[in-house]
């Protein structure tokens, strides 16, 4: 398992993406899966940066593990911010016209549709969100 801990800021999203991309490239990940994972990182780490530490700053850890036999990558995002289960959000209505559309909830919806698995746990004061994707 590899792990990176950084300040949970939007400005650190590229660093997290580069960290995971290097590991995915070593693992021989397809370009399509890598880009889908990059989008998921943007959505999930971006959520943490925006909402986990209201009025303050905190860290977030990103863990990567590879199941070589199953050809799956598992990435876990951990923060110690306010409890937030993005999977408990209502699914957005993706059939509304442009006038009625907002993009609220669209990011996590996209992650759920493009990853094989998404799990959330609240444990020991931490939000633990895990995505698994066939690479």
């Amino acid at each position, binding site marked *: 398992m590899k792990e990176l801990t950084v300040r949970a800021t939007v400005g650190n999203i*590229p660093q997290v993406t580069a960290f995971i991309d290097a590991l995915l490239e070593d693992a021989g990940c397809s370009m*399509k899966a890598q880009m889908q994972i990059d*989008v998921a990182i943007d*959505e999930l780490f971006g959520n943490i*940066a925006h909402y986990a530490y209201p009025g303050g700053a905190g860290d977030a850890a990103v863990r990567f593990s590879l199941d070589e036999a199953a050809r799956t990558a598992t990435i876990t995002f951990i923060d110690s911010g306010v409890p937030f289960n993005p999977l408990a959000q209502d699914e957005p209505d993706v059939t509304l016209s442009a006038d009625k559309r907002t993009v609220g909830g669209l990011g996590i919806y996209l992650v759920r549709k493009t990853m094989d698995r998404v799990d959330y746990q609240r444990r020991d004061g931490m939000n633990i969100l895990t995505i698994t994707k066939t690479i």
Partner: protein
Amino acid sequence: MNITKTVNGSTLNVALEGRLDTVTAPDLEQALKGSLDSADALVLDFAKLDYISSAGLRVLLSAHKTMSKKSGMKVVNVNEIVKEVFDVTGFVDILDIE
């Protein structure tokens, strides 16, 4: 992300290169701000765009709403990853994609 703007008559062409995400979406928003007033139509060229996240969708939706009062907005040269995002989110039904 690189943003290249070209004016062709009353049409504004905006070519994006790189990633349209949480970090770069404000750059596109800023680039379009002001430029859309003088344009009658908007063409977004995604030939060199790697991917888009929901932060980028928010900017596209806003630009689409602005341009729908005029001659509209078109998104061209969309790759497989971007197309999937448009499909999953229903943006495929909202946007004019070529």
